[in-house]
């Protein structure tokens, strides 16, 4: 990971990019549902849109989890190395940071999606 420049910083922010995409898509779909009656038909007791928003949230969380897991794995490997080289300490820093960013992004997505569970699509 550290050998490929500037993948480090880009990879690190990917979970937050996923958060941003999720936010934009969820907000836009909700707007479409209210203004253009998109996917308002009820399915299994809930509006289709609610199901779609849930599915998108799970998808976003899944992608973030993948990023987080790979960062965590890389961090464990970097932590196990004790050669004292600068590259190792840089790798340790970047992987730890990436894992934490994934955690924050997951909290962000969950926070954003929480209202879907509590409110109807348009009110």
């Amino acid at each position, binding site marked *: 990971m*550290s050998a490929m*420049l*500037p993948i*480090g*910083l880009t990879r*690190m*922010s990917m979970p*937050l*990019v996923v*958060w*941003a995409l999720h*936010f934009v898509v*969820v*907000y*836009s779909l*909700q*707007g*479409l549902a*209210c*203004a*253009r009656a998109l996917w308002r038909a009820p399915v299994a007791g809930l509006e289709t849109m609610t199901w779609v928003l849930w599915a998108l949230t799970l998808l976003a969380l899944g992608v973030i989890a993948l990023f987080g897991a790979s960062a965590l794995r890389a961090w464990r490997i970097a932590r196990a190395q004790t050669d004292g080289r*600068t*590259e190792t*300490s*840089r790798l340790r*820093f*970047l992987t*730890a*940071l990436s894992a*934490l*960013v994934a955690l*924050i*992004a997951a*909290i*962000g997505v969950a*926070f*954003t999606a*929480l*209202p*879907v569970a*509590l*409110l*109807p*699509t*348009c*009110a």
Partner: protein
Amino acid sequence: MSTLTPDHTIPTPGDHLRHAERIALLERVWANGRGLVGQLTAVNHTTIALRFIVTGLVFLLIGGMLSMFIRLQLSWPGLNVLDPERYAQFVTMHGTTMMFLFAVPIMEGFAMYLIPKMLGTRDLPFPRLSAFGWWCYLFGGIFLYSSFIFGSVPDGGWFMYTPLTDSTYSPGKGADFWLIGVTFAEIAAVTAAVELIVAILVTRAPGMDLTRMPLFAWAVLVTAFMIAFGFPPLILASLLLEIQRAFDFAFFEVARGGDPLLWQHLFWLFGHPEVYIIFLPAAGVVSTIVPTFARRPIVGYTWVVLALVATGFLSFGLWVHHMFAVGIPLLALAFFSAASMAVAIPTGIQIFAWIATLWAGKPWLRVPMLYIIGFFITFVCGGLTGVMLAFVPFDWQAHDTHFVVAHLHYVLIGGMMFPMFAGLYYWLPLASGRMPSESLSRSGFWLVFIGFHLAFLPMHITGLVGMPRRVDSYAMELGVQWLNLLSTAAGFVLAVGIVAILIDVALCFRLGRRGTENPWQAGTLEWALPHPAPKYNFASIPVVDDRNPLWHDPGVVEATRRTDGLLGEAVDGRRWIIGTGIQSAQPEQAIRLSNSTWLPLFAALTIAVLLGGFITSQYWLSILMLLPLIGLFLRWLWTVNGRETPLEIEVAPGLRLPTQALARNAPGWWALVGTLMIVGSLFASLVFAYFYLWLNAPAWPGGGATLTASTPMLAALGALLAAGVGAWRMPIALRAGHTRAAVIWSAFAILSAIACLALQLPAIADAVGAPQRHAYGSVVWTLAGFQALHIAVAVLIAGFVALRIHHGHVDAVRSLEARIATGFWRYVVAQGLIVWALLHLFPRFA
């Protein structure tokens, strides 16, 4: 300056003669010119940054004076200090000045001053761009304030809500002064963003890899990215509103299919991140000062970086919390309410890291630290009322009352002004070589702190009782007159405090006690410099192996002052810096910078005349000014790196580095990336506007006009792709050494692009008609015009590069400019495809 600087250097044996010579050469190469001309042509980062700071402080005083009038008017019900019209003008100018002419520019000034010094380099990578930014900021501010001379001061509030600011409800020129002046001044923000991103990514001292970067640099890096994505929505909104006012387009007019709420979305899409654009650099200042006075490295470095990055993203998800009361569906409000609360997490992480650092260290209470404590107290209060306002029902209750005024001043003054003063006192010895007077600066602090809290604490109560904001008086029956009188009196105490601080700082430069070096015993690189810092910063570029190099290895101070290290010898009498790898910070390239030049001043002046022509409706003058403007920028680019630049230089005995025209991570390349982020964000805002208008318009497209794919449209698409092929083949031919073929491919791209416009624009005119008819036509024409403008720029670039190839400045080895040109063309083709699909395919499905 050199007479003030004691020579601490111990040259290596046998080198002392060469040392004095080398220092003299560095002094000469990096000095600004003499006298007034020297000041007008200066581009050095220290000079320009101090100008940003001084100009920002002057605007603080002006904006503060306006607020004194506002407070006088509100001190008792029914006063007539300002009539309602003047009151609206003063409120507008106060907010506008504080946001656009004080808070953002002064933080840029701090960043521009500190970043090269903290990173261990000599200047920012694009010195002319910094100077150009400052002139635009200065002229933009003067432009805005000249509205007082012409008697048409903006009065629509700093948020300029439509339809209040359209030509029906704001006839005169007031709103135009705002839209044009602020956009002019904002050029400084976006140019500084590009400058700082490139500086932090590629010009750090060797060894300063990402884990050793000062937290202030991290904060500025995130802020610069936020500016690149956050300012374009506002710039676009300003352009749309100005186009509507000047040419009668219909973006915000309901009768013709527009929507006034579009303005609010675009404005707050900028406006909320703006709060963090101001706060993050201030947080970086806190993260720098706290470890120094706790006398230990910061606790949780990784966590603080995490918090900065997370804030940078999450703060873009909150804009609608300024619009809770405009009638948006509840679920949408809840998304933004949730995001508003989520952003408290990273802010909390930073606050805990600072407290933990103080806890684990041995704190030392000097003046900068006093301001940091003032910051903690004030900012935490502001944050708490912020979380309260993030709850939709509470916001409905407190909306548009003085509770919000109290909240935003707690956040902005607490979160930005206290850290800014802390930084001012902290770095004063470095800039002036002298120490501020401890007693005067402490009194200044207490006046500001007490004055501020007494002025704004009561506003929480007056707001909850129901005193409205943005209104020039209130009813006696509310019973808040005594609280208001207290606010006004305390406001004057605050003002006296600020004036005292500024006098103190100014006096320090003349009368301060000559300071010892590194008086706070800080660990970051800028303190390795002699005080006051010389124009070239470091005699030798330092090599770094720790986050706090001065604590880790005090020898670094001496090493940077000798001239036998990196770049100690000024090569060929030009300004050089070193470029390093983005992650590893290993030396990669030598970067040659510009000397003093008139170009930035002339370019900004030309823009000022152009805008002056526009606001007075002398459009011929504006169009005429395009010629000198393009000429100046071409001249600017022509003088970057020609064939006279060496291919590599010896930066230290035995270490040769390629110059930037050959390097992969060349500053020019990253400047393109930064610029395209800004342009892309501008374009994305426009696409958002298109969809927003479509979604909210009752009839779309209006007037039965529809634009769908037809034969000329498909031909235009083909021409666009052909242009892309030309731009793609050009550098390939160049690298293979076929310069003639490269020139021909450039010409092919230019002709195809022109053909694309010639096919597309008449077809749009046929199908859509005049842009004034309906918001649909307005937005279609704006999209087409936006794309046409980019094609025009791409054509200019292709012509320029072809000319450079012809003259031998660009060739198979020095291919950077060809790479940049192709990068821009790729973007223009991609954007063209999106515009094409949006204009000609989307109406089929909508």
